[in-house]
């Protein structure tokens, strides 16, 4: 039996050996994944972390495209069953959205802001960044931009900054800030960052936070201060004028002689762009406005890989606000449509004629309803595009110089008791003279006209909601919408966020 004993001993030892070795060996060994504590140590890795913080900025188009339908420049009517989508488009049009039903859209904006903020906060404490004033200021500016968006959309949002490294017990959940606190935060962050930011426009700074972008955000913040703070203050309005003026005086940007050159497939060369989100049909997908707006049959017009979705259109009133001579009117598609070889197209048994007039919000199924509403081709539509994401190469513009002129002119008028000054007229005409339309005079450039002109200039550039609120037309009746309550100027705090954070309370009215 001796052999057995040995066998037994060996067996027991083997178990013990494996057990001891095993107990200490449950740490996970990684191969193709990266653990957060093991990354960001060297300069190359660091730059590979800062760059992507801008990658998130590129979701700007995707975040705001649908909710632009709450304004008078975009409408997504129901065409038979198409674009019914649980009536979400109708709620946008009619301003009857709710926090619960439209959580996806509002939470999308919220997460766009704060997931990017969280990623910035994670990096900003990195020694290599916190010790570099330029890098740190750039990230603070980017973070302020997201807070500015949160302020503009939700008013009572949260302020999230990097965690104090010395504190190990967190305050758990963020507290809700007042609009004033958010406003002050954005102002402070940008004002403090401005001196350290690069004033090189374009080139290595294309798509990134420069001093000019900081000026622009500050100008927007100040111009809209009454929206956020509840009352007008001319000392603040003067600051709006000052920051616009700083950009123009900086002389780094120039108005494009050809309006549409700002929106071509290769628009990154435009000298008018202050901030754009660089996009690419395969390398950085997501810009697909052509798919949202074009009719199904436009696949044949532009030789697209798939049939577009026939959704987004503009209201007839908005389309008709353009002078026929206004070159910007060519940004809309109306009339008979042709295939790429020039043959006229039909939709079912009807000629494919796009009619700007949308007779009712909910139209019956069929070609008649499908052909209603002018479509946008402001951003050049890419021919022969068969890439799978339906994305285009155009960079989406967040801020451009024409806006600065119109803002400076508007600020001058607002400082003048909401009456245009000669400076106002000059600023507006700087832009207008390039659009083949008659120049404004002090008499013709009313406040309403300023809003209308901004609409023509910036159609579908996602400034419209803010502008309509500032000019007081967002809660007026337009399109199929009756006059609505003023509280709609801010969206509800997303229900998902309220569920997650008991510190958050719903905005007034919702």
């Amino acid at each position, binding site marked *: 039996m001796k052999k057995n004993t040995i*066998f037994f001993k060996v067996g027991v030892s083997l*178990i013990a050996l494996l057990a001891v070795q*095993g107990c200490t*060996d*449950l740490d996970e060994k*990684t*191969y*193709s*994944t*990266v*653990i*957060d504590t093991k990354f960001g140590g060297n300069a190359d890795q660091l730059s*590979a972390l800062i760059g992507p*913080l801008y*990658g*998130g900025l*590129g979701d700007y188009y995707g975040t705001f495209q649908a909710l632009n339908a709450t304004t008078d420049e975009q409408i997504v009517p129901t065409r*038979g*069953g*198409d674009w*019914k989508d*649980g*009536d979400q488009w109708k709620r946008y049009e009619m301003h009857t959205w709710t926090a619960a039903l439209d959580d*996806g859209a509002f939470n999308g904006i919220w997460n766009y802001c704060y*997931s990017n903020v*969280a990623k910035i*906060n*994670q990096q900003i404490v990195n020694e290599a960044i916190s010790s570099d004033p330029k890098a740190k200021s750039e990230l603070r500016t980017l973070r302020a931009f997201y807070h500015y968006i949160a302020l503009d959309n939700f008013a009572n949002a949260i302020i999230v900054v990097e*965690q104090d490294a010395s504190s*190990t017990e*967190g305050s758990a959940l*963020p507290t809700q800030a007042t609009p004033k606190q958010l406003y002050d935060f954005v102002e402070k962050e940008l004002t403090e960052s401005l001196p350290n930011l690069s004033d090189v426009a*374009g*080139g*290595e700074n*294309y798509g*990134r936070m420069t001093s000019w972008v900081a000026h622009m955000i500050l100008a927007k913040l100040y111009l809209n201060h009454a929206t956020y703070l509840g009352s007008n203050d001319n000392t603040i309005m003067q600051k709006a004028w000052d920051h616009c003026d700083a950009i123009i005086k900086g002389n780094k940007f120039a108005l494009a002689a050809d309006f549409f050159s700002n929106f071509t497939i290769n628009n990154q060369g435009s000298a008018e762009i202050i901030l754009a989100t*660089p996009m*690419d049909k*395969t*390398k*950085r997908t997501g810009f697909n406005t052509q798919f949202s707006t074009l009719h*199904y*049959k436009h*696949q044949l017009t532009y030789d697209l*890989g798939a*049939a577009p979705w*026939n959704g987004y259109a503009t209201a007839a009133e908005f389309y008709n606000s353009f002078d026929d001579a206004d070159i910007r009117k060519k940004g809309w598609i109306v009339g008979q449509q042709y295939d790429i070889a020039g043959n006229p197209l039909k939709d*079912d*048994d009807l000629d494919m004629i796009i009619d700007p007039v949308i007779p009712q919000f909910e139209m*019956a*199924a*069929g070609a008649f309803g499908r052909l209603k509403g002018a479509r946008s081709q402001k951003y050049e539509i890419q021919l022969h595009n*068969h*890439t*799978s994401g339906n994305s285009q190469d155009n960079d989406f513009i967040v801020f451009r110089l024409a806006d600065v002129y119109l803002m400076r002119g508007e600020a001058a008028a607002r400082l003048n008791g909401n009456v245009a000054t000669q400076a106002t007229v000059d600023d507006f005409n700087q832009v207008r003279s390039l659009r083949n339309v008659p120049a404004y005079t002090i008499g013709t450039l009313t406040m309403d006209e300023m809003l209308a002109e901004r609409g023509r200039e910036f159609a579908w550039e996602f400034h419209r909601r803010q502008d309509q609120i500032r000019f007081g037309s967002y809660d007026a009746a337009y399109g199929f919408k009756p006059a609505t309550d003023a509280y709609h100027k801010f969206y509800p705090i997303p229900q*998902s966020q*309220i*569920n*997650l954070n008991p510190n958050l309370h719903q905005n007034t009215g919702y």
Partner: protein
Amino acid sequence: MIRLYLSKCRYTILLVFMATSMAMAQQVVTGTVTSADDGSPIPGVNILEKGTTNGTVTDVDGTFRISVGSSATLSLSFVGYTTTEVAVGAQTVVNVSLQPDVTSLSEVVVVGYGTVQKKDLTGAVSQVSSKDFNAGVNVNPLQAIQGKVAGLNITQGSGDPNATPTVRLRGYTSMLGGSDPLYVVDGVIGVPITSISPNDIETIDVLKDASAAAIYGSRGANGVIIITTKRGKSGKTTVTFNNYISMATISKRLDLLDADGYREQVSRIKGDAAFGDLQRFPKDAQGNGYNTDWMKEVTRTAAIHNHELALMGGTDQLSYRASVNYIGQEGIVKNTGLDRVTGRFNLDQKALNNKLSIQYNLSFMNSKKQLANADILTRATTFLPTLPVYNADGSFYEVGGSFDLFNPVAMQKNYHNDEVNKVFVGGLNLKYEILPGLTVGANGAFKNDNTINSQAYNGAIKAYTSNSGNTTKNLYQTNNVLLELTANYTKNFGTNSKFSLLGGYSYQDNIDDGFGANNNNYVAGFYDLFGYNNLGLGRATLLNGSSGYVSSYKSEWKLISFFARGTLDLNDRFNFTGTVRRDGSSKFGANNKWGVFPSVSGGWTLSNEQFLAGNSTLSMLKLRVGWGQTGNSEGIFPYRSLGLYGSQGTYYDGTVGDFLPGYGPSQNTNQNLKWEVLEQTNIGLDFELFGGKVQGTLEAYNKVTKGMLFNYGVGVGGDNPDYPGHQYVVGTILRNAGSMSNKGIELSIGMSPVRTSDFTWNTRVVGAAYKNTITSISAPGVEPPTILYNAFGGRGLSNVFASKLEEGRPLGQFRIPQFAGFDTNGNVTLVAADGGAPVTDYTKALLYYAGHSQPNVTASWINSFTYKRFDLSLQLRGVFGNSIMNNLRSNLAIPGSILETNMLKAVGDYPVNYSTNQLSNLWIEKGSFVRLDNWQIGYNIPVGNTLLTNARVYVSGNNLFIITKYKGVDPELEVKGDLPTGNDPNTNTPNSMGMDNSGIYPKTRTFMLGVNLTF
């Protein structure tokens, strides 16, 4: 050839008492022992002269020879058969036919790291042996036992030969953790169930309750299915050759419009002006319209053939079984199918005075799959019947510029989606008896599972222009090593009493890795030349930059366990079992690396007590009670507890003037991440009536999943309590917070109403009822998240969902508006939430609970008959109480959309101006059904004294008929209900459950003809 169960009874053979003949008048008796069910001889039958120690054993031909005293009585016993006594009298030849033992208590069931006699069982374990497998085409073992085990719900949602059935044992226990049971094959944990040929299987044991499954610790929560393969036996070498061929057809099709019916409806709805559209109403050279049945164009009558060759033999010291099985299964959808070869070699060796026993198991599978493209089936449903397949010039007919119309034949003939899957499992199992009763064992296994998927799409076809004719090639593989050491001590004491102790250690290491590449935008015609075989020739990598063209990954996990089990059996009256397993997994969070999973259970055989002894009606009654905790960690992928950086798309770098790949935080750290705990109490009652003529089992259980895993939404920027000192950096975290409950009862009753020498009838009813409830889906201190699922799909139906995860409701609960009628404009009106007039606005409609997709009751009725050499078996299976959202029907009955898609004939029942689909109970239907799952008629050919020992021919089939009120194609739908796993850490929308959507591979009806030969 069905009797291959000798290994179970080897110990019986060894225990044969050697004859000590008495010096009385002796007579020599010879004879043959055969099986009453098929007449085949039984080798190894233990024959004892009653009242003596004189005995013998039948040889391989079932014959025996024994000398006995006068007026002797022979007692014949064999595992699986009723012990029979025969008075010899003056006979010299005694032929005995043994009845199969329907009293299953003498059976040995496998309980994980050991076996136990069924009479001593304390947990809920069901065994299905191969002779009870379903008739018909069984590609994988799950199909072979569908409907056989109470509470084991196996759903084959389609006729796709490459689809794996969904298996849910006692309900849905988890969402993210996975609800699939653990498969253990010959001691190897985690073998892909589809890699095993059902013909190689001897028994399948299903560990249903926690007291049985707790020995598998953190992986046992969804039950354990233990598969034991057939092994060789000593004796004559036998060769088994089994073959069948089969034909499959579509069992039911949608009632779609043909061209004339379509034109009639277009005329009714749109008016004859619509016929002016020559794209939709083209005419041939003679000016006639076309009539194409697109479903017929893309499907066929499919042939299936299966061949199996098995060799078996050996000595007492060394025995083997080797088998090769081939199945070639065409799919009923053209361009789909399965070609599978499995090979298995099992070797048993004994050494060192039979104290050392060694088992070698080698298995290999190679399957070539042509995978289905669901989109083709969708298009075959919707493409207009008025369109031809081809243009006059031979090119495919397409409707340019239409959003929804694609020629399905063009799609089918211009794609490849081929997969080659190879699984190799090698195992070595050693057992050494150190001292009487004390055995140590070692079990080692290696598994490699390798898949290469290759796809190509011809970019010249309209449906594939959107991806420019993409081609992909991906390799995925898993290498898994298992090492287990066990020690087992068993001691008998007193009368019929014994105790045993098992202790063990288990180590398992799993590495997954793979890589992939894709390209597109080929020169026209390259698809035909290269398919997916020359990815480098695609132009996309040069024209359209992207980081998505190549990928690779590798991950590893380890599981280290200690386990122990003690059993105590007292006087055939009381049985106790206790198990404990301590599992440490690398996948768990830093604070929860180790978990302990205990269980206790007991049994009381009441029929062995004085007050029931000798009761002729109730011949056996046993009560079992068990409690245990098991874990569910199979759904946790490696590294899910760690804060990770992942690919974050791309970003523009102005210094290089181009886009670069970015990285960023992709996952929040959860140092507390752990297994889900499933706590289960089970009460079981085993009974036999009338001396075993009726036997059954009743089980009741209560299962609670605690710490249910879910991707919980979190507020980014808030502090992460599972990683003190850090903020949430992404919007979700995998966390143990929810809970779920399943309660149910199961009943299984079998009986033999008729049993004569010529005719027998065995019948069995298996049924289960259960109730599933999500009890919590919220983390402490926060409101439950709003998780909408069961997307009601179709045009204009984004963001419309038929279900919402709700506490207090089952998974798969439908919550929808109630249909009120159509208004004059053809709009659907719904019962209003405010109780007023019906509304058309969905958001103002009353939402009510309109049934759920989980059945309340599942049941099968299994019958087998023998008449002389003929036998007949059939199984009816039913599912009751579930509801189905017939989403497909809703999209094929919209008059307003008739020019966009073909419609059901039922479209004529709806108002002409109805054009906007609306979610409501109009599309909810009852999903209950009864199906004749499978049937078989066989004949055992008399073989005489030829080389053959057995020959059998049979015809059989699947899905002969279904009884249901359901209007769709088939109410048996895929019902996964769990979260899509994979490596996406952010999704929290469950897979849809009970939604009948387009693109479902049609169910089949099969007929087959088979021949089995044993030499």
